[in-house]
């Protein structure tokens, strides 16, 4: 054990002293923060400004729409029919983003068409629909009731009906949180690949510069392999901690300085926003609030970072031991540093398959295949993260620990197999790795 620790210590020092480690420790979290910044910044930007031409040949609208002002949309009226081709191609209409066609039957069939040049955001669609709907309401109230418009508005109160999952009243398991779980899983595999390759390169370098024989005169191949996996794993762990700290500090900084209003928790309550917008339709208010808050809400309140990070570390450790042993074995079986790339490819496929399994579970969390992926050591680190963020059924939390237990057993079996390949391959030089070699080395004690 002492020797394994010495090997681990050397590996750890070499890794954290390398330029690539320092670069990745800073660049990685900054890229993540940059992406989050862009999502926030994009989400809080004023909506695109639109010019809408209303073709109203019957004069139903009386050249009027929306009493209030909305800076996001400008309306103009045309009193004749406009063909789509004409709107699309005629020079005089090029200044308009969309054409709203008010036909004479709208009051009976309640259908109108909007022809656009570039697809509008859902928010813009809602705005136009809202403005048009309110103007038609005015007309309908005047035509079919004796009520004043003010009285009509009083009657037409927005009622919020919230549909809530009885098992998940706080909606922690929305699609978005599922993606956060997937992100965590992907992060596990990104780290496994990154540091797995580090193990592989380190082993093959020791082989090619022949230091391995000096080491093997003092430590057993198993101790050497375990020491290497632990040392590189500790470096990976250190890097992860740095990532988490930098990202946490970055998010805090963003909340306090860059987006103080956007990220104000008091403005993140959908219900409150809806109620305060009595003048707006429920649809509009709800949509605006949802769009405004969804990502922010996800990052700052829905995701249970502490919980997720705890399980992330557990499954990262298990997954890393499982795959790390495989990478070490491949490194040991390589005849030269350039050789053996052919065996890296299947490993990469395996990692991609694991990521795909996470995506599959995100979409079909309750299928038998999802359950299989949940316990399969090759895929469980990413799948458990996804399931964890979607949420386990009450009383099924033991499934996480069961999956971890299976992963640990898988890791130990993989270590045993890898140790055999490592032991028998580490002193073979200059050969081309073939599958038959691997089988022979596996059989040999």
């Amino acid at each position, binding site marked *: 054990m002492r020797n394994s620790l*010495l090997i681990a210590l050397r590996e750890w020092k070499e890794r954290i002293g390398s330029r690539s480690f320092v670069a990745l420790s800073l660049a990685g979290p900054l890229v993540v923060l940059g992406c989050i910044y862009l999502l926030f910044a994009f989400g809080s930007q004023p909506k695109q400004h639109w010019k809408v031409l209303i073709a109203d040949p019957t004069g139903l609208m009386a050249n009027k729409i929306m009493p209030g002002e909305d800076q996001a949309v400008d309306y103009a009226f045309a009193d004749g029919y406009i063909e789509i081709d004409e709107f699309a191609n005629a020079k005089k209409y090029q200044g308009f983003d969309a054409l709203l066609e008010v036909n004479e039957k709208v009051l009976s069939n309640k259908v109108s068409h909007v022809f656009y040049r570039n697809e509008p955001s859902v928010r813009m669609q809602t705005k136009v629909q809202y403005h048009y709907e309110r103007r038609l309401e005015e007309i309908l109230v005047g035509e079919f009731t004796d009520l004043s418009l003010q009285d009509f508005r009083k009657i037409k109160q927005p009622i919020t009906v919230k549909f809530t999952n009885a098992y998940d009243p706080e909606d922690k398991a929305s699609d978005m949180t599922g993606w956060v779980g997937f992100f965590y899983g992907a992060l596990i595999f990104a780290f496994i690949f990154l540091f797995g390759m580090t193990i592989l390169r380190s082993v093959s370098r020791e082989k090619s*510069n022949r*230091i391995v024989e*000096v080491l*093997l*005169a*003092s430590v*057993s191949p198993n101790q050497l392999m375990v020491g290497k996996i632990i040392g590189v794993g500790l470096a990976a762990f250190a890097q992860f901690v740095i990532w988490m700290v930098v990202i946490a500090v970055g998010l805090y900084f963003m909340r306090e300085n860059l987006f103080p209003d956007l990220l104000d928790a008091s403005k993140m309550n959908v219900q409150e926003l809806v109620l305060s917008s009595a003048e707006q339709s429920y649809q509009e208010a709800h949509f605006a609030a949802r769009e405004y808050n969804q990502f922010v809400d996800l990052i700052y309140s829905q995701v249970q970072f502490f919980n997720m990070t705890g399980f992330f570390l557990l499954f990262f450790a298990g997954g890393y031991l499982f795959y790390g042993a495989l990478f070490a074995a491949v490194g040991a079986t390589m005849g030269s540093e350039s050789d053996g790339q052919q065996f890296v490819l299947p490993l990469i496929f395996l990692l991609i398959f694991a990521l795909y399994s996470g995506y599959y579970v995100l979409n079909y969390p309750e299928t038998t295949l999802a359950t299989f992926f949940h316990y399969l050591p090759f895929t469980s680190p990413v799948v458990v993260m996804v399931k964890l963020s979607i949420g386990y059924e009450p009383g099924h939390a033991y499934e996480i620990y069961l999956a971890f237990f299976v992963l640990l057993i898988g890791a130990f079996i993989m270590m045993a197999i890898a140790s055999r390949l490592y032991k028998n391959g580490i*002193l073979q030089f200059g050969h081309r790795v073939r599958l038959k070699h691997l089988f022979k080395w596996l059989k040999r*004690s």
Partner: protein
Amino acid sequence: MLEVKNINKSFYRNAALTDVSLHVNKGEILGLLGPNGAGKTTLIRIINRIVQQDSGSVRFDGNLMTEKDLQHIGYLPEERGLYKNMTVEAHAIFLARLRGLSKKDAKIKIEYWFDRFGINDWRKKRIEELSKGMAQKVQFICTVLHEPKLLILDEPFSGFDPINVELIKQELIEMKATGKTIILSSHNMKSVEEICDRVVLIHQSKKVAEGKLSELQEERKLGLYAVRFRGSMIAFVNALWTGFEVVDKQILGDDRFEVSLKMRGENSFDDLLNVLIGQVKMEAAWEVLPSMQDVFIEIVQTKKEIEDEK
């Protein structure tokens, strides 16, 4: 000190070692000789527990060898490497600690050995900055740093210039004097002749000869004698007459020669000296023993001929 008994090892049905036994006494330097691919490195790896033998045993200090005994062995493999991006000192400390030394003790030993080899200025340099010879010195120091009882050196002189070969040789002789046991595998026969007490020769996975150098040479001597003299070659040949046969001659100068010859009949070395003294000016005369290289080649070729005949 070390006893290897009936070791067998094969790789994929190819025998690497067949029933090899040998022993090394305390304070002895044993030369392990053999052509490339004979099985020397496999034997050394088995002694170092890097490779497991199929059968047979290795005893260290009278007991079956265990992993713990590795701390008393210093091993310098033929193809040795260093971590290129480590400093010389960090590298030496790392390997010394793997061999059981504490960091503090390792530093004390490093101080001593770096001084002794004159590389104290290099301790903070990275290995990649060292010349090949310098790196070889570091490797040698790393091998002996933990003061092992048994040193196993596979081609320790390769890569060294003659001055450093001499330096290493002197170190080995001094270590032997302090009671260290050394196994030396080398193709440098001159060095083997100079410092080894006994040799073991391995050929095609089998031990084919073992013994003291002088014994092996004695067994294979061809009855040749050499004489170095000043004078006339004609006078020299006339003096020999029919009692001796000239095998070879070398002209060293205008009237200076070195001649190899064989005795005829019952003639002895004394007879040779008697007939020559007074005829030429004798500088030296000696019995020619086969060099270690000759012994090596002779044994290997004899075995090959026997194999061919089979």
